[in-house]
Each structure stands twice: as structure tokens, then as C-alpha cells.
């Protein structure tokens, strides 16, 4: 009995040692030479494997960084400039600084602004809904409200607001990986500059219908009137296909456009004070009568210094 046990132990041990030697030899013979820097770069990556950089995952991104001559075409939106600095340090390259971005939902078709015109009882998927028809509101271009973007976000940064029926981006959590941008069949989500102190101005509408039709569908729609483009001193606003677009690289956050927009389609976020009143009414009463003109400028300066600071 004991001899059987002893022989078994001996046989298994000998077999184990033999196989270990074989494995060692095979591993040496077929060794794949890999740049050790790939591992090093991967270590400093966030490890989300979100694909926001355009590669299959963090390792694929690391590999491409090691192979690339410079880091101009590689950028990890999740890690941002900090991670890119570390990557550059590992590789002895230079990383270009990029302004941090954030996902912005360009639709203000809340339940109140955009009444439903029919009832959708299909499956809760924007992709399926978009393939079937224009959606349950009068607006063909706006948010469908089924939350494909919420499902696509790996960072839990988007949630549906039950009151408005629109997705809300949590700026703290958003890494600008762009997964929601790809998931949205209506292409209403855009990655925009996060802006100084997270302050941003953007047109919260993508409706390309003519003014009257757009407004009929949604009271907060951009009607393409072009007032904002005329008002903008920096030429940052273009109106194309009946919808305005603000170029965030040119925008200086003066918010004159916010004030003139007749439908409130232009949104300003994270500003401490409301947008300055348009200057239009001020000169008119001044010409008509002097007295009422005097008190009016008072509230205006209260708001304008705030904007002046931002411009600087």
C-alpha cells in the first residue's frame, strides 16, 4: 500500500520535472520578442479599454504609441494630458497638450418643449426606433430618449433625466471617449472643449427644418434666424441648413448670442450669472426719452463686468 503511494509520488515528480524542462526549452525556442516599452506604457494607461482612442484597447494603443514616430496621432481621451505626459516620458517623445473635452447633448427637446405626437411601444433602443421612423415627437432630428448613449457609456457619466426625457452628462465622470457620440443614431452628442472653469456656450439643437416647422415641433428649437451669427463679434457662429453652430475654438464665451436667441436654443453652462441682456433695447429708449433710459443701463453693467472678466 505505502509502496504504491511512494511510487506514484516519484513517478509524478519525475514527469513534472521532465515536462518543465520541455516547456522551458520550447518557450526559449519560440520566444516572441516584444518591445518591453509596450508593457511600460500600458502600465501608465488608465486601463479602461474603452476604445475612445480609436484602438481596440489600452494595450493596442500602447503598441501603436511605441511604434509611432511621434504622439501627434495618439491621444488617450480618458487619461488626458497627464497620462499622455507619462506616456511621452516613457518613450522619450513629446506629447502635444490638448484641451480637455466633454460630451455635450445638443437637444433641448424636453417633454415640455417638445410635445409627443404619437406613442412608441417598440423596444427601448434608439437605434431600432431611428430605423423605424422619426420618433414620437414632431422633431425628426432630436433626441429619441431611449438611452442608447447611457448604455454605451462605460464610465456611468450619462443618465436619463426622467423629467426632461433627455440624457444628462456628468462632467466629472465624462472622459470624452466618444462612445456616446457613436451610439447616438441622431448624432446629437458632440465632443466639445470643456472650456475655462468648465464654462461653455453651445447651440442645443440640431433641427435642420425651416424656422416655422422647427418651432412647431419644439419651442426651444434653433430656427436658423441667424441673429446669433450677426451678434457674434468673433465670427464663431455659422448658420447652415437652418441650424446655428458655434465653433468652440473661436468662441470667447461673451454670451451675446445667448441673449439674442429668440427661442433659447443657445445654452451657457457653469456661468455664475445669467447671460447679459441684449443691448438693443438700451439705445431705443435713449432716443425716445431720456428719463426711462437712465435706470435701464443699471442692471446691465451688473451683468456685463462678469462677462468681461471671462473674456480676459
Amino acid at each position: 500500500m505505502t509502496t504504491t503511494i511512494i511510487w506514484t509520488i516519484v513517478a509524478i515528480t519525475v514527469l513534472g520535472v521532465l515536462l518543465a524542462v520541455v516547456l522551458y526549452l520550447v518557450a526559449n525556442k519560440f520566444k516572441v520578442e516584444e518591445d518591453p516599452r509596450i508593457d511600460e506604457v500600458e502600465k501608465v494607461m488608465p486601463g479602461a479599454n474603452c476604445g475612445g482612442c480609436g484602438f481596440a484597447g489600452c494595450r493596442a494603443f500602447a503598441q501603436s504609441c511605441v511604434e509611432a514616430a511621434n504622439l501627434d496621432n495618439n491621444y488617450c481621451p480618458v487619461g488626458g494630458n497627464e497620462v499622455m505626459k507619462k506616456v511621452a516620458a516613457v518613450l522619450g517623445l513629446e506629447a502635444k497638450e490638448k484641451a480637455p473635452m466633454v460630451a455635450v447633448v445638443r437637444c433641448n427637446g424636453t417633454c415640455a418643449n417638445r410635445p409627443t405626437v404619437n406613442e412608441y411601444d417598440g423596444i427601448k433602443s434608439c437605434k431600432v426606433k431611428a430605423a423605424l421612423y422619426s420618433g414620437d415627437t414632431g422633431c425628426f432630428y432630436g433626441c429619441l430618449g431611449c438611452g442608447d448613449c447611457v448604455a454605451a457609456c462605460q464610465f456611468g457619466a450619462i443618465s436619463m433625466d426622467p423629467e426632461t426625457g433627455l440624457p444628462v452628462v456628468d462632467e466629472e465622470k465624462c472622459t470624452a471617449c466618444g462612445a456616446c457620440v457613436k451610439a447616438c443614431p441622431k448624432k446629437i452628442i458632440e465632443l466639445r472643449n470643456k472650456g475655462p472653469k468648465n464654462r461653455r456656450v453651445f447651440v442645443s439643437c440640431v433641427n435642420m427644418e425651416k424656422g416655422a416647422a422647427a418651432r412647431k415641433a419644439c419651442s426651444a428649437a434653433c430656427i436658423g434666424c441667424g441673429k446669433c451669427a450677426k451678434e457674434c463679434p468673433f465670427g464663431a457662429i455659422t448658420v447652415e441648413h437652418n441650424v446655428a453652430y458655434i465653433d468652440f475654438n473661436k468662441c470667447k464665451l461673451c454670451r451675446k448670442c445667448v441673449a439674442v436667441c429668440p427661442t433659447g436654443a443657445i445654452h451657457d453652462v457653469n456661468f455664475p450669472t445669467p447671460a447679459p441682456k441684449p443691448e438693443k433695447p438700451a439705445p431705443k429708449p435713449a432716443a425716445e426719452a431720456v428719463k426711462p433710459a437712465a435706470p435701464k443701463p443699471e442692471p446691465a453693467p451688473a451683468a456685463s463686468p462678469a462677462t468681461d472678466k471671462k473674456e480676459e
Partner: protein
Amino acid sequence: MKKTFSIGGVHPDDNKISAGCAIEVLPVPKTVYISMAQHLGGPAKAIVAAGDKVKTGQVIGEPTGFISAYVHSSVTGTVKSVGLRKDLAGIPVVHVEIEVAPDEWAEGIDTTDTLVTEIPQDPKFIVDRIKSNGVVGLGGATFPTNVKLCPPPDKKADILILNGAECEPYLTSDYRIMIEKPQQIIVGAALMKRVLGVDHVVVGIEENKPEAIAKMKEAIASLSAASSDYDGIEVVTLKKKYPQGGEKQLIDAITHRQVKSMGLPIDVGAVVQNVATSLAVYDAVQKNKPLIDNTITVTGECFPKQSNLLVRVGTPLSYIIDYLGGVPETAAKAISGGPMMGKAIANLDAATLKGTSSVLFLTEAQTRRNPETNCIRCGKCAEACPMGLEPFLLNKLARNGMMDELEQNAVQDCIECGCCLYSCPANIPLLDIIRVAKGDVIRIIRSRTAPKK
């Protein structure tokens, strides 16, 4: 034994409640909105502008590309505007708005009812007439008929199949035209027979339409007695099974030939045309009358005034419904097309198209979707699929975005008949998911094959 296709299929109640209603001509509305995207392929380009006077049958849209079609004015009047208007799915499409004046037909159109049975000798003349009169397939896909009748030179058709199956429940417009205009349909078939150079034409009709079968047989007998142009045309009675009217299913049922994956009917030597298309071909060639009206069934259990109407293209749906007494109170959903493949109408102000076949009203109880539960692997969907696919598997693959596997499992062959969804005991929205995946996979296949050319 009556013929039918070999795999899959379901047997929904046919509910042909409007079958007894003779075709009535709907008065022309005050304004029509003619869409420029009434066919498969590139939308037509409007060649009229606001203020132009147009006559009935005048060309107002020109084709843009090989697969495209002419669009004609269905009324006489003044063009009010050319611009975006919402179609029945609420999607903006270019429409020509025309304010209607009393009918005045464009030159060269024969508006009499006399039957012209003489078949022109020149196939090119026939094809040109079909093309210039904007005839498209009226079986649902609205594929330009002239393109379908001119297969590539290396492929030869040996049989023309006329689709009179009308397998969708509720729809009766094809049935009514087969009863009321059988001779015109057969002349249309003979015209297409001449173009294709085939000897054999089969009209496939399901067994639940005995009257149509009798009328069509009668028409063939009387026409072939007078001329040899009508030889080789026969009616085949088919077993009742959905989706018999699917092109590939009909070819299988009648000739027992199988169209391979991603193939076309012409690969097996068959061309399929709907009976309504045949009627349009007759009008286009023998009368030089463009496709400006079509028969539409307005029906539903909750709809009191069942009707089959001859409607001018571009008539707003709301006008048709108001003419028949308005939307019934109990109706929860309006569908354009049949209950299996039709599309829910999101916009009742939308105008009819060449391919519009019906407006169907369904009640809350008929349209309610039960909550989705887990797949129990019963295999009913796979049994029902007429294309031999495995919808339960495609559903899983699609939800996980596995495009390569979807393609290997032939999602691109789905004909969107809805048999899987109809048979699923777990109420899984199989078709909704598979349809989107099919679109994605076809896009991938196209992008892969495109650069090689």
C-alpha cells in the same frame, strides 16, 4: 396537391373583410403632395418650380441614376411649392405641392376604357414606355420595373411569375383588380413576356381567392383564343401560407428553384412581378398613361366603411380617411401595408405613394405588445423562418454586436416578413433587432465589395 414554398411560414387569419367592396374612384383632393422618393434607389429630381402649371400625367421628377424612376403629376393644377414635407414615418422628403384644378390630361395619353390587346413587336418600345411612365414594382419594394425587366446580358430568364398571392392579412387591393381588371393584367403580363422573351408565364394566386382565380383563368382563355401572343400563360393555385408573396418564396412554390444567399431571382431564371405592376405596365404601354393612381385598401375591424379606392398618387391620407368618415375612436394604430410587414403611420398628413397599398386600422387589443420574457429555446422562430435562418441566434448575436457571426449566419438574407416575431411565445422583438443588424451587415458587405470595383 397545391403548391407552396418548402420551408417555414405561418398561418395568420386572413381577415379579408374588404374583399367584397368594389373599387371606388376617390374624388381628387384640393391639394396633392407628390413625393420625389417613391421608389427604391435614388430619389427623383424635381423639374418643376413654384408657380408652374402642370397637367395630369406630366413629368415633374426625373430619375437620378440607374435605379430610379420618373415621377408624374397625378393632377392638373399649379405647383405651390417644392420642398421638404414629412412622409408617413415623419421623415422629411422632397415633395411637390400642387393645387388642383379640373383634370386636363397631358398629350398622348389614352384615357378611354377600351381594351388594347395587340402586343407591340419591339421590346425596346415596351421598355421605354414602362420607363418613361414611371412604373415601379407595386408589390411593396417599389423597384423600378424597367430595370427588373432588363437583366444583365449573361443572365436569361425562362419564366415570368405574376404575384397574385396577396398573402398579407386584410389587404384586398390586388384581389379586387384581379376581379375587375383581369384582362388588362394578362395583357400586361404578355407585354412583359415579350420584353423578357420567355415562353412561360405563371400567375400564382392563393387558394383563398377562388373568384380571382376563376376570373383570371377566364381572361387568359378569352385572350389566347384571339391571339398567339397569349400562349403559355397559366394560373397556378397556391396553398394559403404567409409569406407566399415573397419573391423567393413564390419562385420556390411555383418552380421549386432556390435563390441562393444574396442572389437575385434572375440567377435561377425567374422574374417576379406583382399583378398591380402588370396592370400599371398595361396602362403605361397600351394607353401611354403614367403611374399616377393605384388601388388602396382602407380596412380594419374597427373601421366601419371598408373600402377599396382608386387613389391619385400624392393624396393626403387624412383626406382619404375623412372621406370615409374619419379615424374610428377605437383605433389605436394606423398601418400602411399589411399587419405583418406594414409600417405604422406616424403622420396621417402624409401623402400616398405609388407603392401605398393600404391603410389599416387596428385596435389597442390587436396591437398591444406583451412584455418580453426569456428565450426558452423552443425553436418556433427557426421553424417559422421561410429563409431557413435562426432568429433566436441572430437576436443574441445582434444584441452583442457580433457582425462577423451575423454575416456567417446569413442575417442579410432576412426578408423582414415577421414570421419569427409572430411565432415567438416569449414576445421577443426578434424582427426589430434583426432588421437593424441586417442593415448594418449589408452596409459592411457593400463597403467591403465597393473598393474592388
